[in-house]
């Protein structure tokens, strides 16, 4: 079967002729350490399968998963268990808490599995319960908490093992929008302090743009584009991606540095290149001019005029690839 795919048999052909579904093929992603890598795709694009390959909850048919130079697929049962216990922990879409355990027992589950001494388990899990803001709920059962709180338990459970890799499978997708934003804030807060390598799966583009340091877009089991959020918005690789991003609020995502040109105007407010257009517009309207100077670490780099900003946040016509329009 693997050979068929390597010889170029298409997904549809494989399904029709052999009854096998090609879930993922030719997915090569370098995940940056200590950053948030978002894998984004619609349902059926293979993203949940992909994340389960990393800790081998689903066994890949072929390929390699290299973590710090070690191939996860070559690990024997014991090494794999060690990898799951100490290196990579996971947060699930539907929380997947143990319903018969209290919150504190859920948070300490990973440590209990490792047979860490009781005293240490209690201290470490309490620390994370406090950190995610669930102090006082230690002896409740999961069913007694709201969805958002349950997912905080899921997050605390994953963090309690001190694994440096965090696999988050649509972790916030089951929550309502306000709570979801809350949870994203909690995650970003934690990340600022912990610097974990996070693999975050989502189908929500806004979420991807908000938390991702790097995004890979998955379609039908293949990566259609990968790169930082800016690049994906400004240079969608194909119509699929362009269609995908046409409805997002560009003003909140596109940074001023990405649309500047080299001219150096004599006057105007100076802003950092990392500022998003929405904020830059505010600076402009307060300053009463229509050109800003873009700086990096305080040194001027170039400038952006108001009409350029407006063009950048305008919604592109659907179905047209805008590759290279801005650069």
């Amino acid at each position: 079967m693997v050979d068929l795919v390597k010889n170029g048999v298409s997904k549809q052909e494989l399904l029709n002729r052999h009854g096998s579904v090609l879930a993922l093929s030719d997915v090569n992603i370098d995940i940056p350490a200590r950053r948030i890598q978002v894998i984004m795709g619609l349902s059926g694009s293979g993203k949940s399968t992909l994340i389960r390959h990393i800790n081998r909850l689903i066994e890949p048919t072929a390929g390699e998963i290299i973590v710090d130079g070690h191939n996860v697929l070559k690990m024997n049962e014991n090494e794999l268990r060690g990898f799951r216990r100490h290196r990579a922990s996971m947060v699930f879409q539907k929380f997947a808490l143990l319903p018969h355990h209290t919150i504190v027992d859920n948070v300490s589950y990973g440590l209990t599995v490792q047979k860490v001494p009781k005293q240490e388990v209690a201290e470490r899990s309490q620390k994370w319960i406090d950190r995610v803001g669930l102090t006082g709920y230690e002896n409740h059962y999961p069913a007694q908490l709201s969805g958002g709180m349950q997912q905080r338990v899921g997050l605390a459970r994953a963090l309690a093992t001190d694994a440096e890799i965090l696999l988050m499978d649509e972790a916030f997708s089951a929550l309502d929008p306000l709570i979801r934003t809350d949870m994203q804030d909690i995650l970003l807060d934690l990340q600022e302090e912990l610097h974990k390598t996070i693999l975050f799966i989502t189908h929500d583009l806004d979420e991807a743009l908000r938390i991702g340091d790097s995004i890979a877009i998955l379609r039908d089991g293949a990566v259609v584009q990968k790169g930082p959020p800016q690049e994906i918005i400004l240079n969608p690789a194909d119509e699929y991606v362009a269609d995908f991003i046409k409805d997002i609020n560009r003003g909140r995502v596109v940074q001023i540095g990405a649309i500047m040109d080299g001219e150096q105007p004599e006057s105007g407010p100076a802003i950092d290149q990392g500022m998003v257009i929405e904020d830059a517009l505010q600076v402009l309207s307060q300053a009463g001019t229509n050109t800003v100077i873009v700086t990096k670490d305080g040194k001027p780099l170039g400038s952006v005029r108001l009409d350029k900003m407006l063009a950048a946040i305008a919604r592109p016509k659907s179905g047209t690839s805008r590759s290279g329009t801005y650069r």
Partner: protein
Amino acid sequence: MNWLEKFPTMERQELRDFKKYIDLSFKEFSRTYGDGIESFFDPLLYFLVWLEKLLVNTPWPLIIIVIAIMAWVGARSWYIVAGTICSFLVIGYFGMWVDTMSTLAIISVATLLCISVGIPLGILMSRSDRLQSIVTPVLDVMQTIPSFVYLIPVVMLLGIGKVPGLLAVCIYALPPIVRLTNLGIRLVDKEVLEAAESFGASYRQKLFGVQIPLALPNIFAGVNQTIMMALAMVVIASMIGVKGLGLPVLRAISNQYLALGMLNGLAIVALAIIFDRISQSFGKRLQRHRESAHGV
């Protein structure tokens, strides 16, 4: 067109030989291995006799107190405890105490036996679809085949007595616990199991920490069903020499003693209701964690 009107059957002589062959070979088998199989079940017999003697010889107030305490521990309801005490007092008053104790002994041993065989079998079944497809039809047969049919080989093999009676009860009472253990473990939320796996839980940690605890309500429903079916077999078991409440019922049938039959029958019903209520409310208490804070 003779074969259309009359079903084409085996030659009468051939059929007779065929039956004779089966009978003789089974007789041969039981003659050769009967003693061995019987001694294999000896520990079971000793345990059953010991328990029966214990129940019969212990002063009745002590038994009632112990049962009342068990009812309280199981059900945590004064209502059920009071009902249990009253039932046993009435049973004793109508002179059925010793028979009830015998029945209690065989039901307890049969239930323990079914649990110790059924739960591991159910766990194995939940692990393998292949085993499930083999065991399920066997369980179907065990549940539907008329009890008298398997009494014949059991009696041929082991004679008349407590052990064959116990086996007959177990054959009938085993399927629900196996089925419900298998079902309960298969129904455990896949994502929760994945979560346990993703934290590096070993096979044992998954089984005893996640699968069995979450399947417990179903397993308990199985235990409850097993007890009920064991009680239902009491009368049939008494046909092959098991003492207890079944024997007077049997006597009542052959002599048309209405009152005797009714009283002993009602005593069996009382036992069934008591066991059912206690084990059901115990099973419900195991699921307390499912209640949410919103009083649902």
